[in-house]
């Protein structure tokens, strides 16, 4: 896979190493290294700091034990001392040094356009005068094509449009493009609009979401293409303002770093820890010591750490791959997060895990935010995942869970992230991303119609012939 994946892994690994801070302390997760007897003589030559570096096990994060013992076997004491000194120097250089390191990224404070592009046009400067409310962009009553919008829905531009139209769902693009995997998520929103397969009739309930729900295309929220941090500030503000109108915001990313401002923006209006998070992803995204304050690698960590969501109300589904390490899983367990890995799904069978997730949702808070990093799907159905991981879930499985939660609970927000459309010229990945979004729209339509979450229309359930 990719180089940056390896880099991510390193971040996780070092995070486990160096949580211990001063090297004299034993890492809480790292086993000690008991110096084998044959090496005692070479070990004794080392200074006290070097010795502690070895016996604390801190060294094992640079060299596996097998290799360390090989080095002791084959090197003379002086050579060992050189190696240990150089590794110690690495460990010392790992953290931030205010004298040398860039601790903050400087900006151009004289910029003419410091914020322009992020500023919504004030009402008094809008040239077109129109009565607030969503408006159609098509010439025809039953358009076959034209300006692509999410769900072919009318467009809303301002919060007052949402209020005037009594809008239930505002689908909005957030074209951030900072995935730590392969990048093209910036084109995700327009790719999903262009395919024109959102809010089609649901073959299970036979409902048409747009008949039941008032849905609009709410355009895109502005991003800073060179800074996730600056983008997140803007997006959280816009999500909060949108949520405050009463509409449910459905965010189409964009990379998964936008999970943080998406949930944080909703929490600002609905209240922190007032709703649950059901998050589908291959990646736990709980890197505790990332050098950036906001990134996809630490989106879930930041939400829990900043108390935007409660651990016991957080459900993660589909975890797998090399981002899973003992420390991250243990940390999630300590936060009381309900996580469901592919290892668990494969061992217990999907049905059991599905039932368990549904129970966890049912017992959880009355409201949920649902989030999908498309990496949750197997690359066979989602080759265009920015951070793809093999051996994932199937579309039908994920869609079923999404549909359930969206039918069972009040949805306060939905987000789908990290579709990198250029990686799949067949556009099947985009079609499947739309299907995941549809799963929630269909669930919401079922709920709005007062039907049971698992409702199946009798005509579609069975042909009824003897």
């Amino acid at each position: 896979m990719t180089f940056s994946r390896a880099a991510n892994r390193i971040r996780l690994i070092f995070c486990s190493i160096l949580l211990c801070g001063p090297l004299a302390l034993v890492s809480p997760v790292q086993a000690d290294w008991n110096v084998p007897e044959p090496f005692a003589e070479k070990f004794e030559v080392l200074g006290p700091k070097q010795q502690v570096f070895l016996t604390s096990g801190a060294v094992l994060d640079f060299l596996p034990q097998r290799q360390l013992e090989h080095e002791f076997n084959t090197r003379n004491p002086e050579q060992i001392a050189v190696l240990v000194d150089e590794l110690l120097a690495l460990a010392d250089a790992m953290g931030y040094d205010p004298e040398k390191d860039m601790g903050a990224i400087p900006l151009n404070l004289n910029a003419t356009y410091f914020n322009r592009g992020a500023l919504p046009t004030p009402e008094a400067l809008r040239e077109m005068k129109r009565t607030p409310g969503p408006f159609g962009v098509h010439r025809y009553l039953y358009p076959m094509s034209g300006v692509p919008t999410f769900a072919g829905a009318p467009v809303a531009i301002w919060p007052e449009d949402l209020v005037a139209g009594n809008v239930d769902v505002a689908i909005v693009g957030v074209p951030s493009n900072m995935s730590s995997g392969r990048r093209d998520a910036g084109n995700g929103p327009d790719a999903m609009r262009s395919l024109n397969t959102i809010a089609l009739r649901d073959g299970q309930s036979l409902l048409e979401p747009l008949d039941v729900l008032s849905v609009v295309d709410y355009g895109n929220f502005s991003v800073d293409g060179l800074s996730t941090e600056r983008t997140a500030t803007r997006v959280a503000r816009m999500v909060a303002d949108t949520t405050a109108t009463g509409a449910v915001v459905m965010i189409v990313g964009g990379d998964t770093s936008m999970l943080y401002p998406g949930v944080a923006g909703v929490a600002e209006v609905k209240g922190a820890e007032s709703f649950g998070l059901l998050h589908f992803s291959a990646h736990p995204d709980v890197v505790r010591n990332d050098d950036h304050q906001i990134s996809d690698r630490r989106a879930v960590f930041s939400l829990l750490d900043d108390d935007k969501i409660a651990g016991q109300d957080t459900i993660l589904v589909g975890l797998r791959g090399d981002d899973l390490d003992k420390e991250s899983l243990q940390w999630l367990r300590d936060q009381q997060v309900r996580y469901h890995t592919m290892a668990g799904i494969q061992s217990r069978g999907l049905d059991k895990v599905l039932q368990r997730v549904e129970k966890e949702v049912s017992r959880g808070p009355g409201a949920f935010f649902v989030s999908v990093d498309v990496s949750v799907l197997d690359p066979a159905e989602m080759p265009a995942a920015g951070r793809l991981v093999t051996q994932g879930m199937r579309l039908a499985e994920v869609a079923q869970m999404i549909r359930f939660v969206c039918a069972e609970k009040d949805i306060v927000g939905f987000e789908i992230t990290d579709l990198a459309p250029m990686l799949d010229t067949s556009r099947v990945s985009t079609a499947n991303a739309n299907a995941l979004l549809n799963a929630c729209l269909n669930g919401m339509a079922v709920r709005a119609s007062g039907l049971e979450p698992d409702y199946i229309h009798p005509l579609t359930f069975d042909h009824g012939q003897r």
Partner: protein
Amino acid sequence: MNSGLPLRVITGLLLLPGTGSVLAQEGDSPAAVHAPGPDMSGHIVGEEPYPFDTVDPRLEEKDPITLPERVAPKLGLLTAGDIEFLESGDARGLAGSEEDTIEALEERSPEEVKAWVDAMRQVFDNSRFQEGVDQPNIPLNTESDAYNAWRLQRPRSMDPPREDGPVALGRYDGFGGPPTFGGFPLALSQADLIAGEVDVAILGAPLNMGSGWRDSGEKATTDLRVVGGWAIGGQDQYIQIDASEVLNVVDYGDVAVDNESTERSMQHVREIVREIAETGAVPMIVGGDHSLEYPNVAALADVYGKENISVIHFDSHYDAWWGGSHLISHGYPVYRLIMEGHVRAADYIQVGLRSSGPGKSGFKWMREQGMRYHTMAEVERRGWGAVLDRVVAEASEEGRKLHISFDIDVIDPAFTPATGTPVPGGLDMREAISIVRRLCAEANVVGFDLVELHPALDPTYKTTLNSAHIIKACLTGIAMNREGLTTPHYLSPLSSEHAIDNYYGDQQYYLDATAAEDEREEAAGEVTDEQAEDLEEDSVEQGVEDGAENRD
């Protein structure tokens, strides 16, 4: 990367471009000549504002207006400050010309005028940085105990001791190992470059922060090794020279970047490029987005002195934009290099410009600064041949040390579709190869970069292959330069003309020139015993290479 890889291997991947030092320091002062400049230390650690005058001189201040008496009734609710703003040049960008402003006033009630002016003042103020409102920088997580993990270098003591010098990775006379640029041996430190008397070090720089399509990260540097491998090295038929026989060329690994901050990547790239240039080798950086031009050229200026480097910038975009909130992006490198004093604008040559910008103010600025620009409009007017000769003559002026910054979007998207911001109407590959080869032969090239390759956009590998051939053209040119083949537009008299008849009327010239070259080679071929041994070894190498080619 499967999850079973041992840490050591993974660490090795991260730390590939290692040197003897553990951590190259961001704040290190360069080794060589420096013109005095503003103190950069506070800026580099991110605590102080950027110390240069960052106001874009090309911003044309608009003229203020005087409002006529007849609109006075509309202004009743405005404050003196409001009216001053409304008449100022600042308001012209929002309210338009005098005529537009009067029309807007006339169609509004005094209440509406007040709301309108308030809104404009709000937009004007909010567009600019406001202390106490806007974050003046982007804080990083300095609490992280792995803060510098991304650029820690693998200590030499982790591997068995070896001599300094380039390392051939293959079993068969260096071939048959993991892919390197051109199949060249690997060097990882300055000591390797010095011991190997390296002439050219090719460095991957996987920076993936361009504003167009993004895929210029490690896929670009990896694919250039995999797909471009054989294309980069080897014989050039036009010249009848094999750069790999004339020059010591190495793959210098990839430089670590932070793909969430261009700014943060810049200092480290600059250090590694400087490390190459300090040895006298030509750094060839392959990227990566065009922000890299900034650290590449700044590093050369660190070594050769400020204002001692000329840059020729091949691009469909002029990349001298400025005025946004960030201090570097792939649209800014030219401006920042000039502003920081590394290069004089008059020592910049631009070739291939054709994107929508800049407008008149940008072109006037270039003209005033003495920057030589050669747009595709000039090519349309004069023809490619005339522009080619003019550019090479300018770049080869006496005393210039030249860096070539080659954005592959200067080439037509027919040949290089896989680039972040393609623009039709560009050079074809024949034109691109010949100008790069000529420049590298006829000018004094001390640095080269090739940027903006985004392999995922082109499943045919065409773009990667064409990019590799641009690199090869420069390697061939540098080899020609070292061999003294610097006459304008040299081509082999043997390969460029069969000379079996006198079709063009100059048959004898080619026969004579071929004979003269043979004579020169023969004279050079009267060799000592030691050289004879070398030659014998060469023929063995050739045999191995032939074998390798046959296996292909």
